């Protein structure tokens, strides 16, 4: 059994001083006169946030905000690797038969993305809605979890780590919610551990068009496609997905092939890291009004992560290799799916394609929101989970909770 200990985060005064020193010595590039966000993060925005980060960011508030959450650490050993210390938030419902929900973040997110969901999900007064025990870890190489030191720690290993964590907390059956890597890890976990992981909720839906091998879905798809019979939302989503492929894949191509080289940029230049992440916060969201404080909070999670910012991009490299590379899976049986479609996601594909992933028991097309749905529209995500798992919902009773 993994030894579980409470965890209290503390700022490193030396680290903060060094960050401020580096920020003071920043050499900024120039910028083309008529450049906009289409060239990357504008100079005035980076300068503004860098100055805020150096002079105005409230480090005590940052520390307190993290420590308001119930934080723990547990030792988890994945086959073939040294033991890892996994940090996680663990918030239990007062109801014993609440559903254990593993909330997985992605890149450049963190466990903190659960912050806004917690009060919405642990709302005991709501009748008919589901109750949850929530586990929100820092993924290995991210946040306050250990860094991995050897190669080959791919999606299979991430899923094994998360599965072992849940088991160590006494949750033999559980559900999973996530987007970005959270979704990918959920997909692999549901292939590897179908007796444990019974339901997945994805806010990023990696569906593929139906294949000719299943004519009952393929023919309608073909007709719809040729006659362009997609809804306005779906057409826009397809266009946005294509645009993302054209203009948004630079970071992906780099991180999947040369993560170490990128690591030097992210480790030595705080504005380098800031720009790298800030670009995604803006490009991947639905005009979310990021405050400078929020941006610095997210970037600080990487600058001050236990493993360092360079470690976080290694998953991209590993995800293309190993037993369960990103593109694998297709239809995954035995696990019920809830799919949420957000209009400003990086790819947003037609609803009918969702059946390529598994048994879809819940679907919701949202009017607002993008890649960081739990942060942008937490009430939307919480609402989905409560409906999906509540009485009459498609995943009601899917997770056996008698033992809890």
């Amino acid at each position, binding site marked *: 059994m993994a030894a579980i200990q409470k965890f209290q985060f503390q700022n490193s005064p030396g680290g903060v001083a060094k960050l401020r020193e580096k920020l003071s010595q*920043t050499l900024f590039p120039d910028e083309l006169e008529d450049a906009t966000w289409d060239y990357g993060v504008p100079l005035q925005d980076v300068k503004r946030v860098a100055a805020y980060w150096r002079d105005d960011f409230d480090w005590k508030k940052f520390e307190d905000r993290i420590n308001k959450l119930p934080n723990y650490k547990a030792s988890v050993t994945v086959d073939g690797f040294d033991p890892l210390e996994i940090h996680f938030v663990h918030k239990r419902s007062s109801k014993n038969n609440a559903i254990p929900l593993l909330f997985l973040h992605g890149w450049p997110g963190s466990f903190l993305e659960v912050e806004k969901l917690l009060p919405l999900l642990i709302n005991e007064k709501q009748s008919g809605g589901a109750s949850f025990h929530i586990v929100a870890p820092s993924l290995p190489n991210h946040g306050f979890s250990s860094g991995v030191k050897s190669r080959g720690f791919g999606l299979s290993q991430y899923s094994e780590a998360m599965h072992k964590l849940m088991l160590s907390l006494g949750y033999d059956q559980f559900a999973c919610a996530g987007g970005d890597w959270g979704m990918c890890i959920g997909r692999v976990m549901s292939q590897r551990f179908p007796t444990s992981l019974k339901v997945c909720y994805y806010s990023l839906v990696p569906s593929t068009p139906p294949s000719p091998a299943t004519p009952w879905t393929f023919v309608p798809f073909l007709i719809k496609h040729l006659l362009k019979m997609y809804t306005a939302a779906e057409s826009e989503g397809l266009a946005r997905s294509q645009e993302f492929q054209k203009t948004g894949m630079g970071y992906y191509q780099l991180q999947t092939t040369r993560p170490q080289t990128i690591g030097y940029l992210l*480790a030595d230049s705080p504005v380098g890291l800031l720009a790298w992440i800030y670009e995604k916060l803006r490009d991947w969201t639905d005009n979310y009004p990021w405050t400078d404080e929020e941006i610095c909070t997210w970037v600080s999670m990487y600058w001050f992560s236990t493993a360092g910012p360079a470690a976080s991009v290694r998953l991209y490299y590993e995800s293309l290799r190993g037993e369960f590379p990103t593109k694998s899976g297709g239809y995954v049986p035995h696990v019920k799916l809830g799919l949420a479609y957000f209009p400003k996601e990086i790819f947003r594909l037609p609803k009918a394609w969702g059946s390529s992933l598994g048994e879809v028991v819940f679907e919701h097309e949202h009017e607002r929101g993008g890649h960081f749905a739990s942060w942008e529209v937490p009430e939307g995500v919480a609402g989905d989970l409560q409906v999906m798992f509540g009485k009459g919902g498609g995943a009601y009773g899917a997770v056996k909770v008698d033992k809890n």
Partner: protein
Amino acid sequence: MSATQPFQISVPQEKIDTLKSKLSQAEFPDELAASGWDLGAPLADVKRLARAWENWDWRQAEERLNKVPQYTTPITVDGFHELNIHFVWQKSEVKNAIPLLFVHGWPGSFLEVLPILPLLAAPGGPAFHIVAPSLPNFGFSSGVKTRGFGAKQYAETCHKLMLSLGYNEYVTQGGDWGFYITRAIGYFYPSHCRASHINMLRADPPTFLKHPTLALQHKLAPYSQKEKDGFARTEWFGKEGRGYFIEQATKPQTLAYALNDSPVALLAWIYEKLHDWTDSHPWTDDEIFTWISIYYFSTAGPGAAHRIYYEFMHPRPDSISREDLHRWIPNVKLGLAYNPKELSVLPKSWCRTLGPVVFESFNESGGHFYATEKPAFLARDLRTMFGKGGGAFKVVKGKSGYDRTPRAYPAKL
């Protein structure tokens, strides 16, 4: 011509001090065990180089470089502000020397011409007047302040530079962006750019419609082992090696912050290419630091150079796309150098669709930085192509490369 001024590199001491200070405070990531070069530049290399660069003497490199004749001249490209263009200019004693424009790429610079200067000046071959500029945004040329400075503008800059030096007709050499820019020069200025030698060959397979003979050859003859190896290398680069390209072509500003702020970032970014793109070239520390310092101390700053990727990939309507530059361009005689460790290694039948080919060299070794890795091969190529009996001999009117006519006529009595 009067606007052309001699130039000596003189980096302000403040910049050198800042570089050393930043290097001394550099923070390094960790590294996964047994990574080698697979995930990028190895940590041990980057750490060692960062420490050595901090202790390296730029001034001795500067002094060495200033022995090479350098100049600047103002050039105005249509629709843009005036740019100060820095260039190396080695004039030959031979009156009829051939004007040769040498165009670098990324992460190269005017430095790449240096190894061939003495080789081309040696007796026994045609003489050249050699012009090797720093492209706008690179080296000691101005930075461009507005968007849209792409293929057409780079071509115009180089062409106007040659005209300003009195070279109405000239020939070119280039690889990397030098390939694209010299091709664009040939496209836009065919009555001026008479021949081009290129060492990075991007081309499409021949189609029966456009290149029936080549297409037939292509269909009938199986690919040689070398050509198959070439495909493998090209595919490797396409799958594993293009991350930098896509980032630079889509989000150049985002990348600029790290490259401008952290010399270690710049070092790793460029050093990775010096390793991956060459045929095991034994880079000395001195070479590495000189190359990277040209970026660090550049007039436009290290965050500016890679904007060329964005601009070429977003061509304006009056410009030309990269794909167009992979296709037949008439009138400009071509010399092709095939190097096994180039990033795009394509069969002859494909490369011959680029234009009227009058010279080819097939090298057993060498990669992307041809002039640096194999200066003797490149010099041989140019002297053969442009020399007596070469496919581009006398391609420039009145500039044969020799002061006496090739055939010994009896003197008039």
